[in-house]
Structures are given as C-alpha cells and as structure tokens.
C-alpha cells in the first residue's frame, strides 16, 4: 500500500494532494501539466517536495516533518521511464543485471528466468540498446525495474513514446505484471484506453489537486473526470462467465441479462468486469430487428447530459446495470430521448476490464 501526502509548488502549479494506492495497479490520471510526473518523481525521490509524507507498505520514504528523505537508491523502487533510459554502454543482459546487483541482498521480486521469459527478452540479451526497437526497449526497461526487487513499481507514461501497434504489444505485459507479479504499480497516464484496461484504482489529477479517486469502474464511468470528456466515457458492468460457446464466443450473465463477447480467458463461473464504451452504444426506441449486433439491452433513460459539442451522453438503466451511450444531440431530439422513456441499447462491442484487486 502506497500512501502519498504532498505539497509542492512548481512554477504556476500548486500541488496539494493526498491519496493511497491499494495493491494492484493504480493509475495517476490527468491531462499533461496536472502534476502526475511530479507526484511519481516525488515517490521515486528524484524530486524533493516542499512538504509531505510518502510511505510504501508502512516503510517511510519521506517525511518533511520528521526530516526524513531517503535518496532514490535507498527507496527500493523500480521506475519504468517513458524514454526507457537504458544504459547505452551496456547490453540488454547487463542492463537487466544493473538493478539486480544492487538488490542482491534482498529477496528478489521475480525470478530472472521468469522475467526474461515473460517479457520475451531471450533473443535480445546480447544486443545493445541502440539495436533495439522502441517496444523492445520498453520491455527491457520493465524487466530491469522488476529485477531491482522493488517494493513498488513506478511507470511514467511508459507507452506514450510508442506507436499504436507497439502500445498494443506492451499493454499485455503490464497486465501480466499486475496479475502475476504481485507488485504494486503506480502508473501515470493520460490515455483513457490504457487506464480502462490496466487500472484497478484511478486517481484523477487536475491542476495539482485530486479530482476523484476510487475503483477504476466508478471513476471512469463519470465523464466529467475524463480529460477528453464524453468521447472516452464508458460504463463498467460486473458479470459471471456462463458458457464458452463452440463458435469462439463467451456468454456472460450480467445480473440476469446475457452478454455475448469474443472468448474470455476466465473459466466458467468466474466474475469478470466488462467495459462498454459510450461510443459503442446505439440507442433505439423500438426493439431493433435484423441487426448484426448480438447484445441488445432494454432499459430506461435516466439522464441526458448535453456536452459543449454536438454530442450528448445518455445514461441508461438496464437490468445488467447502468450503461452510457454517446449520441448526437440531434438524434436525441429526433428520437425524443428524455429521462424516463424506454429505450433499447445496441452494443457494438464489449471488452473485458481488469478485475478489482482489493480496490
């Protein structure tokens, strides 16, 4: 458990915040300039805040009142930087060994062979950083941080410098870290898709203050906290895996309503959390027929939130739970969508979100 209490003035930004991150992956979320990197650097010890207290699993890293400030090398952290920061004069093997050597008197966080296997580093070990692609560098940086036997893993927008293909390549590694390595992760990001896929807990920062914090499902369902507003809004539903069908689909049971989506890795009976992005939901006044979409939920409009642009966000209560639909204001007017009326929500796609871990 990471506990952070900080006050720091940095140019025009006045940082004043307090949060705690339960086990799992906590995302510090917010637009650039919100103070995310300042917070993570304070946890790493690369920045000395004006005042505050930081502890990891009860171990105090910094406390201005008591005059405690551990230097970065004494903090037992692993830091994955956006720009990887591999040592150019060392090959991959030596880069991986760097933190491991300094942590040799502590029990390791992960077995080296397992880290190499998990991150697919085997073929890269003899290479120099300048002979690696961006995605490969990221993987080596993750492995290097993990082998330093950290009490907490810090990641500052580790995917931001990568193109979409590479992002998709690295994301699963962070999921495996979260699910298999049992190391708490503090992850800075401004990309909603990353947050939705990785976060167990979200801390939303804005202008140096905390706007919202809590379980990912709750925070992300509120479009007002998203930097991009309604465009990235989405709802989370909890469901039970009911059946793996022979045609590659899985049927989930969401409070009695079936949801069908591509094969889910979880076994029958497991509880999963699914995310339905607001822009993947179409609303109809009458039950649509002859449609290719598999998931159609009936419900009642609870609220219509008009944004600044041409769009509106509609909150629909269904038996499966509350879902969000993003439609144009013109459609809302044409269909007469107002609170209280019955609608059918046509869902174009559903994705499985990470389960809450102690969140």
């Amino acid at each position: 458990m990471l506990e952070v209490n900080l006050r720091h003035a940095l140019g025009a930004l006045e940082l004043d915040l307090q949060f705690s991150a339960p086990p799992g992956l906590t995302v510090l979320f917010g637009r650039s300039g919100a103070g995310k990197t300042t917070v993570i650097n304070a946890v790493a010890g690369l920045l000395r805040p004006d005042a505050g207290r930081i502890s990891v699993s009860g171990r105090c890293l910094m406390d201005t009142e008591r005059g405690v400030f551990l230097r970065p090398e004494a903090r037992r952290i692993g830091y994955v930087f956006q720009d990887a920061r591999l040592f150019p004069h060392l090959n991959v093997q030596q880069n991986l060994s760097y933190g491991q050597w300094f942590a040799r008197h502590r029990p390791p966080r992960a077995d080296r062979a397992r880290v190499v296997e998990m991150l697919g580093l085997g073929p890269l070990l003899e290479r120099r950083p300048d002979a690696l692609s961006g995605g490969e560098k990221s993987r080596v940086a993750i492995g290097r941080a993990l082998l330093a036997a950290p009490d907490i893993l810090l990641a500052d927008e580790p995917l931001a410098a990568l193109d979409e293909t590479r992002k998709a390549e690295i994301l699963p590694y962070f999921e495996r870290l979260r699910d298999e390595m049992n190391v708490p992760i503090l992850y800075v990001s401004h990309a909603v898709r990353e947050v939705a896929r990785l976060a167990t807990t979200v801390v939303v920062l804005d202008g140096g203050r905390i706007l919202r914090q809590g379980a990912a499902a709750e925070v992300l369902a509120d479009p007002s906290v998203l930097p991009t507003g309604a465009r990235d809004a989405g709802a989370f539903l909890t469901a039970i895996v009911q059946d793996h069908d022979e045609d590659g689909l899985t049927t989930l049971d969401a409070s009695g309503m079936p949801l069908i989506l591509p094969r889910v890795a979880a076994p029958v009976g497991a509880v999963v959390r699914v995310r339905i992005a607001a822009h993947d939901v179409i609303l109809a006044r009458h039950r649509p027929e002859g449609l290719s979409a598999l998931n159609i939920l009936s419900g009642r409009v609870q609220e219509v939130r008009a944004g600044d642009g041409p769009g509106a966000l509609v909150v629909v209560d269904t038996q499966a739970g509350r879902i969000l639909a993003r439609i144009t204001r013109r459609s809302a007017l044409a269909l007469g969508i107002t609170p209280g009326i019955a609608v059918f929500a046509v869902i174009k796609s559903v994705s499985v979100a990470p389960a809450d871990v102690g969140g």
Partner: protein
Amino acid sequence: MSDWLTPLEWQAVVLSLRVAFWAVLLSLPLGIFVAHALARWQFWGKGLLNGLVHLPLILPPVVTGYFLLMTFGRQGWLGGAFADMGVVFAFRWTGAALAAAVMAFPLMVRAIRLSIEAVDPKLEDAASTLGASRLWVFATITLPLILPGILAGTVLAFAKAMGEFGATITFVSNIPVQTQTLPSAIYAALQVPGGESGALRLVMVSVAVAMGALALSEVMARRMSRRIGGRDA
C-alpha cells in the same frame, strides 16, 4: 635514434616525456573531480573555482611561474611543507612537472567537463532508482560514458605539458638534465651561435610526439565510442 640526437638533447626529450607523463597522470583524478563538480553540482564558490581553474589559461605564463615560485619555492608556504615530506620542487624536474600540470589543467578540465555535460542526467537518475549510490552512478554510468572525453582531455593536457615553456623556465629555470625540457632545450640551442641544426632536430621530435599523441587518441576515441553505443564522439 640515440646517436641522431646528442646525449644532452636526448636527455631533454626523455625529461619532457617524463614531466608530461607525471603531470597528466597525477592531475587526472583531480581534473575529473573538478570537471564533475563544475558540470553537475551547485555549490557556493563555484564561479570562483571555475575562475581559478582557468587562471593559468589567461595569465601570462611567466606570472603563473612567478606564483608557483612564491608558493612552491624553498621559501614558499607550501614549498616548505612539501620539502619536509621530501618533495622538493624548486629547480628540480618535479617542479617542471608541477608547472606543466598547472598549465595543462584548464585544458584537461574543459574537455572532461564538456563530455560530462553531454551525458544525459536522466541516465544517472535511472541508475539511482535502480539502487546505485552517487559514487556507483559515477563509476558505472558517468565514467564509462565520458571515457572519450577523458582521453581527449588527457591528450590535450599531455601536448600542453610537453610544450610548456614560460611557467617552467620561470619556476625551475633551464638547467640541463635537471629541468631542461624540450622547449627549453630548443630555446637554449637558439641562443648559441650555430645551434640551429640542434634546434631543428628537437623541433622535429616535438612535432612527431604531438602528431603521434593526436593520432593515438583519435584511434582510441573511435574504438571507445563504438563500444559505448555507436555514436560518434
């Protein structure tokens, strides 16, 4: 080669090499330390230190020699202390080495400082988050990355030490075998009627040593930068 030069000229060449070698070797650790302090640390008196290091570069060499004489001469406040420890500078080759070191120091520090400033501090931060103390960061990250700069600074300082004349002759005079370095020997040869041919031979030796050092450093720098990561030094 030894019969191409007269024994006295040969002595001057050997003395110069010895003076330059010890001057560079002994000032190198201090040079790296000072360069690192100037490049990376914020401290009170940084400007003063910077000025002091560069002073020999801008002062007339004779003035530097005068200060050395006042400080490290037999009557000097440091010269006496060193004499008690058995190290005498005045009118000895050790004094020539000290003068050469002081005169070459700014060039050495400048080259090394530039290479330290070219090392991304973010790499050093990354090393510290991985558990390396400041000393380890320097030894395992900064030092390997600045080796080409250290080499450049060393060669530059060596060349300067080989050619130092003004401060040396002021501090330790021009005593054959004792303190007559290559430049002093050339100067002495030119003072004697008919000494031009001797001077020319010594000039050729000077040029050869300087070019040789430069070529050697080029080769080594290229090899090092390839090892560091394929970037040009």
